[in-house]
């Protein structure tokens, strides 16, 4: 059982380039999340989704876009990469409504550097 899978694990981008961070889960979880973790800091929510076709902004959404066309996949898009987006990105998933005591399952993260 793979859980939450993120690709790529590492990436270096030039300022102004775009890319998509991929996230897929095989647990049939309705809820999915994207977080960023800056060095020495906690995780901050970028975007989240409570089901296919439904997404919403988190605490730090500027510079990012998401889509959720299937239950399994929740890609994160950076359109114009900026140095401030250098961070480690985590995707997570959780069963849906009524499961607040269930923990989020995290992927292994993507380390992204913008130069």
């Amino acid at each position: 059982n793979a859980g939450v899978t993120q690709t790529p694990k590492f990436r270096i981008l030039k300022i102004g380039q775009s890319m998509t961070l991929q996230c897929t889960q095989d647990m049939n979880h309705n809820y999915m999340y994207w977080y960023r973790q800056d060095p020495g800091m906690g995780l901050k929510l970028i975007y989240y989704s409570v089901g296919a076709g439904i997404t919403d902004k988190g605490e730090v959404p500027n510079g990012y876009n998401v889509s959720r066309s299937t239950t399994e996949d929740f890609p994160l898009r950076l359109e114009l990469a900026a140095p401030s987006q250098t961070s480690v990105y985590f995707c997570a998933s959780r069963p849906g409504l009524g499961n607040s005591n269930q923990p989020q399952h995290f992927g292994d993260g993507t380390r992204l550097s913008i130069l």
Partner: protein
Amino acid sequence: AQTVTQSQPEMSVQEAETVTLSCTYDTSESDYYLFWYKQPPSRQMILVIRQEAYKQQNATENRFSVNFQKAAKSFSLKISDSQLGDAAMYFCAYTRGSSNTGKLIFGQGTTLQVKP
């Protein structure tokens, strides 16, 4: 808005000793859940322990236990018989129980060093 604060950026403990990591939170909700996650150098986020706010009994998972003080809004993690593999960054996290989004709010983290 809810906040989570970990006031100890770094802690150290001798192998086999006990250490307590602090966490405080601010919320006006009565129904919520609290979690401790461990992040080793491998970067994985690993659930250590969870606590339901409506339960008075403190959660325990093997060598890990919490001291949940609801009135003081305090949620500390106690690690007994510390092992070298416990060295990691530890995050305290909060989520509303009645939330229909399940969003987690994280503290800043505490780096735990275990000395042999």
